[in-house]
């Protein structure tokens, strides 16, 4: 298949360095302490954060810092073919660990000793880049829950097909057999929190792809920032109305 045509456009009409349309909504669940939905094109992810709360398992309580746990799952209806519920999905477990590890580095865990923060991420629609969408959704949900954090986190993936570095691969491009690198950045501190790839790739290609993914992260970060600011604006408006009525 031709992933980049002669005009330089991809299968879905994007340029190689173009990200999919981003959409986000915060506080989508009433029962969670913080929640958010995040969409990258047709990939849609829902994240819910419970906590910081008292650790449920006394034995695992860390007296010096908070414990961050994550559960990532894909809804049975999320992909093209309806998936049976397996017993334990190894890929999901691995993604859970990656999400928890990425966000734990960003949370000021030492401020919240003996507590536990649970992050539940569910993929509602899968169209590639779920891991990155999950990290972005979880970051928004943590911010919504009021968990103290070091910096903004943004994640984005990039791949390499047809001799071109492509930003934010969709499902079809993901199945193209080329390498894909997922990057999560602390955009203010310029720190890499996560860098994952399943394939071998040469040094030059790697650098090009990582650079592209980092630029994608910065674009996502800007979007996340405006989302957060708009949400705070709505909240303060709501509370000021409530106060004037009281």
């Amino acid at each position, binding site marked *: 298949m031709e992933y980049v045509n002669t005009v330089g456009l991809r299968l879905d009409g994007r340029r190689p360095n173009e990200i999919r349309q981003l959409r986000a909504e915060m506080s989508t669940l009433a029962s969670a302490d913080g929640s958010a939905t995040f969409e990258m094109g047709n990939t849609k992810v829902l994240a819910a954060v419970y906590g910081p709360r008292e650790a449920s398992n006394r034995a695992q309580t860390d007296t010096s810092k908070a414990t961050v746990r994550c559960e990532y799952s894909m809804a049975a209806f999320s992909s093209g073919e309806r998936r049976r519920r397996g017993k334990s999905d190894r890929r999901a477990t691995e993604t859970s660990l990656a999400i928890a590890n990425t966000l734990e580095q960003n949370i000021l865990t030492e401020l919240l000793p003996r507590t536990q923060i649970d992050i539940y991420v569910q993929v509602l629609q899968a169209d590639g880049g779920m891991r990155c969408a999950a990290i972005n959704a979880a970051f928004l949900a943590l911010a919504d829950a009021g968990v103290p954090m070091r910096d903004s986190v943004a994640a984005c993936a990039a791949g390499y097909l047809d001799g071109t570095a492509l930003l934010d691969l969709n499902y079809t491009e993901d199945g193209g057999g080329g390498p894909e690198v997922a990057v999560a950045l602390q*955009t*203010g501190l310029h720190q890499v929190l996560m860098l994952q790839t399943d394939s071998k790739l040469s040094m030059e290609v790697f650098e090009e792809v990582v650079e592209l993914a980092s630029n994608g992260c910065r674009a996502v970060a800007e979007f996340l920032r405006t989302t957060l600011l708009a949400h*705070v604006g709505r909240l303060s408006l709501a*509370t000021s109305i409530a106060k004037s009525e009281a």
Partner: protein
Amino acid sequence: MTETCTPGQRLGLVTEFEPGAGTYVAGSFVCASLVGIQRTVPVEETADKRLPRLEVSRSTRPDPVPSPGDVVTARITRLTPRLALADILCVGEHPCAQRYSGVVRIQDVRATEIDSVRLPAAFRPGDLIRAEVLSLGDARSYFLTTAKNELGVVYAKSIAAGVPMVPLSWQEMQCPTTQSVESRKVARV
């Protein structure tokens, strides 16, 4: 001046500001750790060599937490011979986001004739009570008291008909449908 900020945003220099709630120090900068509204608390007149404090607070009001002396609204969940267990729903006028458990011990039900109190004659599971927080209590729950005229049951449903009852005296409530009288420690509202 209010300004909203996001985690990691640099708010000012450590040499010019003191980090307050919702901020942390990274290198020589005071940075935000929360999404919220940034405020500067000016220096107090008396303090010498103090810097103005930078704070970031979430615009939503923080969850109310019961503290001794607060009047709370609670729902009775269980009765034992010695105490009534309750879930605290509101602190003052503000609803709690989290469930706090409280306990009314038998000696805290009413102010007079403490020794002859029978708990089933004072509360029933499901009743809404108004109570005052006595102390932070034990590891599990807050200690509550209803030993005042204005404290006690404010809303109770009758056993027979399941409809809200009308207070008759400080010790009795009546079901408007079946006219049956049940005994409660009624609050004077």
